[in-house]
């Protein structure tokens, strides 16, 4: 199983190298190696280290965050179809960000507002589903889906009353776009810290996947664990959405595909989700940058185009 993580790690490095090399100017492997060693021409250094590297790291961090958040929510709800996007957390963040844009705020306020929106969405969904005391997974998922639809309506309303010159920036943000990332570090650091923090809880999550009663009978303090996962998954989502807008389906397809290959041991799935989610978004972003270069597509389009058929396939397969 550590072999699986090692191969995913190598795959991640390869995808980062590919993302650095490809673009409007293609950098040869030899030039790439020179820059890694601290040499190479000034042009290449600027291109790779100042332009492509931050964007690639932002993509990696965002993808990893979304995949880990998805994996956590799937265990929490014991439903393989749960993910931050489906549960409306991304929608809440989008409303927060668009509101700030509409009021003509700066990027920092937009980020903060997106973060607040994601957290508000989480509190709303979990609070409403929890309200009467019963907190069943299906109820939570249903609440999330309905709240997500509500965010969708609010977004449409805001777009309808927005002056047209502001629309392009908003649309790109809605579809998810790594080029809007201010700095890759929040995403990367939060991802690394979260994976380290979650590892001692991973076996608890394996037991929780068998149902809360069984988990309690095997010595898990279920409620504290559920709250920890829920707060952590919301934080991860909020950080991801703040970095790159609302990118759908990474949290859904990555953990699910990994489970099909590696089984459902969270000690493997969680770090593997971080690596594979990061890799997927780096590759998707590379595709988005190069497909119709010099024009750039928002990366959310690519992940959604991959995610929608996968989601439908999974729905079709699950009884």
């Amino acid at each position, binding site marked *: 199983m550590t072999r699986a993580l090692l191969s995913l790690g190598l795959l991640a490095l390869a995808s980062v190298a590919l993302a650095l090399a490809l673009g409007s100017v293609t950098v040869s492997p030899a030039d790439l190696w020179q820059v890694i060693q601290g040499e190479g021409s000034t042009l290449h250094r600027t291109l790779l280290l100042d332009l492509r590297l931050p964007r690639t790291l932002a993509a990696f961090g965002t993808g990893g965050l979304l995949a880990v958040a998805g994996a956590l929510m799937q265990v929490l709800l*014991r*439903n*393989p179809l749960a993910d931050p996007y489906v549960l409306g957390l991304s929608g809440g963040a989008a409303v927060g960000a668009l509101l700030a844009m509409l009021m003509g705020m700066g990027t920092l306020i937009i980020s903060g507002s997106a973060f607040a929106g994601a957290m508000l969405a989480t509190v709303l969904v979990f609070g409403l589903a929890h309200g009467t005391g019963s907190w069943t997974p299906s109820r939570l998922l249903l609440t999330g889906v309905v709240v997500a639809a509500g965010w969708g309506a609010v977004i449409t309303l805001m777009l309808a009353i927005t002056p047209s010159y502001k629309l392009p920036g908003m649309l790109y943000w809605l579809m998810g776009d790594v080029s809007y990332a201010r700095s890759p570090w929040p995403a990367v650091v939060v991802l690394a810290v979260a994976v380290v923090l979650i*590892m*001692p*809880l991973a*076996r*608890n999550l*394996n*037991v929780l*996947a*068998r*149902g809360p*009663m*069984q988990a*309690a*009978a*095997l*010595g*898990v*303090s*279920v409620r504290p664990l559920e709250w920890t996962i829920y707060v952590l998954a919301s934080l991860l989502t909020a950080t991801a959405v703040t970095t790159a807008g609302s990118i759908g389906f990474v949290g859904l397809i990555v953990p699910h595909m990994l*489970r099909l290959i590696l*089984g*459902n*041991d969270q*000690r493997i799935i969680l770090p593997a989700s971080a690596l594979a989610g990061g890799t997927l978004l780096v590759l998707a972003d590379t595709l988005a940058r190069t497909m119709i270069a010099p024009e750039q597509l928002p990366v959310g389009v690519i992940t959604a185009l991959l995610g929608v058929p996968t989601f439908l396939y999974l729905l079709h397969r699950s009884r």
Partner: protein
Amino acid sequence: MSTLNTRDLVINVPGRPDGFALNMSIEPGQVWGVLGPNGAGKTTLLHTLAGLLPARSGQVQLNSAPLTALKRRVIAQQLGLVFQERQDSFPATVLETALIGRHPWLSPWDSEQGEDQRRAEQALTTLDVNHLSDRLLNTLSGGERQRVAIATLMTQNPDILLLDEPTNHLDLHHQVKVMNLLRDQAGAGKTVFMCLHDLNLAARWCTHVLLLYTNGDACWGPAKNMLEPAALERLYNQKLITVEADGAPVFVPVSF
């Protein structure tokens, strides 16, 4: 060895008057059978004894400490429970399922070692399901899944074994095998407490019996005192014929 006591325990069955408070002492070496009609609160009682449901009043004590004062992990090292219903939202193999029984014994950074693996395989062998160890749980028959659940409890190896209808879905041979296994466990100093629907299994294998009535009444004691045809007929609202076979009473329902 651990003892489970109930102090004026009233279980919380919604919409039912308090009924009779339970003051039982469930001790090592004893095999308890809980009998009662559907909806009498057998499962609720079992979950309350495991600390998974709050009692309406009174308390459950594990070695004279109230359950509510103990950490879940400490409880799980001494007390295990086989549920009547199990959910499997994610696919898992038989061996993985048995291995989660080791969870209360491992610290957060530990992973299952050879010793844990050995215990799990031994338990699976005892329950005749070791040949299925790589199979996914959702591909097994009901009886096989029931045996895997009991094997998980054996892997957990607590002092007190609570089981909710352990013979559900089992064929006759495995019913006998499981009941013998539980009796042997009690013989080795464990405490066994289970809900049963089969009077005859209770008559042959239980040392103590608790009768739980729909209205909340209850009586308990050594099995031979409790298994009175008149009491059982009132319990199930069903006429019974009693015969003797293999040295134990056999209760047969009358078909009218």
